[in-house]
């Protein structure tokens, strides 16, 4: 089950996604968190963020909208309270970093780059729920390249994953920009900005008006985008992809691997089945046994190869 991901040897290719797995101790009641291939924290910002007023979520057909607003304890308290817990994990831990200016991103990464317990960082330049920065970084290729370069310099020897926004005209353009800036890996996709209206009150259900759509509803789009970036950018640049968006079974995960992902992350599905990610590891093992696949890497980008 082990895979190589941006120079790291991971026990398996299954991660939990940023913002959907707390700070790890919340999941410990339900599964062995050390059985995960990787773990990505909620977005951390330089200063604490309270987040948006509620309602912050609303369910839709086969998905949900969230507008949490990057609520997090901030860098200082993260280091003091959360890092010691995360440091005990055996899985590869990535800190997801967000901010409103390049300087903020760099400051967070600089502070954490020396932490032995961390495998690397995931750069969130694609959160749809913060007014400044966020999505605007992620949609402008020049800014993607600039921020990636600045953060990569602060990273030291740690792995830098850049998380791509899905709602752009051509995702390969931003993917190329991140690679040019020095990204070691790309993760895709983040959520799509969306809206649900309460027809009785004529108001959006979410206080933030809009929220990010996640869950099974976005899976086919995510698979398509992973495949597009794999074919047009990642294969040639030899950059691994972390695929996510609506994954809730091993079969879903295999689709992402075939499309070109080296690893996958589970987000919304953990809300329904808290141990979903480790169930997917077991399911992948079964699939490989059934298909006589000895190295998972054989699956990556295997779309259109004879079955």
């Amino acid at each position: 089950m082990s895979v190589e991901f941006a120079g790291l040897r991971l026990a398996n290719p299954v991660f939990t996604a940023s913002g959907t797995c707390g700070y790890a101790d919340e999941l410990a009641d339900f599964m062995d968190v050390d059985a995960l291939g990787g773990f990505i924290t909620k977005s951390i910002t330089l200063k604490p963020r309270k987040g948006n007023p509620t309602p912050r979520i609303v369910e839709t057909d086969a998905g949900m909208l969230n507008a949490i607003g990057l609520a997090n304890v901030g860098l200082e308290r993260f280091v003091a309270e959360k890092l010691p817990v995360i440091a005990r994990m055996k899985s590869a831990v990535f800190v997801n970093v967000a901010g409103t200016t390049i300087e903020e991103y760099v400051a967070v990464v600089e502070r954490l780059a020396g932490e032995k317990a961390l495998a690397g960082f995931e750069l969130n330049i694609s959160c749809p729920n913060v007014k400044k920065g966020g999505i605007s970084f992620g949609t402008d290729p020049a800014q993607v390249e600039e921020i990636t370069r600045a953060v990569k310099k602060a990273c030291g020897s740690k792995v830098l994953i850049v998380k791509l926004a899905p709602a752009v005209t051509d995702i390969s353009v931003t993917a190329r920009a991140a690679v040019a800036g020095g990204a070691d890996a790309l993760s895709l996709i983040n959520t799509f900005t969306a809206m649900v209206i309460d027809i009785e009150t004529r108001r959006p259900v979410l206080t933030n008006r809009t929220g990010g759509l996640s869950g099974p509803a976005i899976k086919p789009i995510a698979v398509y985008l992973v495949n597009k970036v794999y074919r047009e950018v990642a294969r040639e640049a030899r950059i691994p992809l972390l695929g996510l968006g609506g994954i809730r079974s091993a079969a879903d995960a295999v689709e992402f691997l075939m499309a070109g992902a080296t690893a996958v992350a589970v987000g919304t599905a953990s809300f329904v089945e808290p141990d979903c990610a480790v169930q997917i590891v077991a399911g992948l093992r079964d699939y490989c046994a059934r298909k006589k696949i000895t190295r998972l890497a054989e699956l990556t980008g295997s779309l259109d190869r004879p079955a």
Partner: protein
Amino acid sequence: MTQERASRKKGSHTATVLSNVQAGECFWKLRFRFEGEAAQAFAGFRPGQFIQFDTSELAIPSIETIPVALRNGARRNVLLRRPFSFSDVTVESNVTTADLLYCIVGPASLRMTTLREGDTASIVGPLGNGFAVREGTRIALLVVGGMGLPPIRCLAKSLSVEHPDITAVAFIGSRTVNALPLEERPAVFEEDLSLSVPTFATLGVPSMVATDDGSAGHRGPVTECLSQWLQENADRPREEIVVYACGPERMLAAVARIANEKDIDCQVSMERRMACGIGLCQSCAIECRLADSDETIYKLCCQDGPVFDAREVVFGTDDA
């Protein structure tokens, strides 16, 4: 010393449905049976704690039986689990049974009506922190608004069993009497308009009912009954009294104001839309005051609550 507020064994469990019946005009009663490890986990269930119930694979009732107002919602798929309280938990050797009272408001609760005896259900729990019983409490004032009844009924039972020294009185408010999740209509009992509500009376807990339309008991908000009781019992030391409340946030705010004026401890059980129920998603934020400061922070309803000290909650920030 306060009593344990939470059972520590959170987990993903399977329950068997013992019965599921429409028990009143507006609500259903679902009875679960837990065995083995699940029975143990739920034997530790504290009143005010909750569960997350997966209804995504349940059948949809036939469309003609669905109230017109809910038909659009009925066609919506369910993805996320839904939070529910228990109104009663009974532990007998290796089996724990629990009652869930629910009202039909949308796709998940509609699907729940199709559960039959012998069906299994996927339940995550017990979750959150329940009501705390502080040492020195002599009087528990239980305030209910409409569907806030289940956890308060559960608390009334645990008080009567575990704290027979505490006198409990229930104040039950509703828009109209038929909207209350009561299996039997309250019967006129005393001259002072207090009513015997059987589900509390059998526990030895007297009750007063207040309805907006005057269909039973006092006509007006339930907080008027609470205020009146406090006035009539003004000689009781305030340290002996604790108010426990569950209901619409507007009612909780009014109850908190009354308790605060008299400097009486008050615990409120709050509601928020929840995606996970276990602290993963931060969807269930409750704005809370920091002690000795003007600053507020968000706590999580599913982890820090759903029961909060009324003094810390900033009410009225969510009217969903």
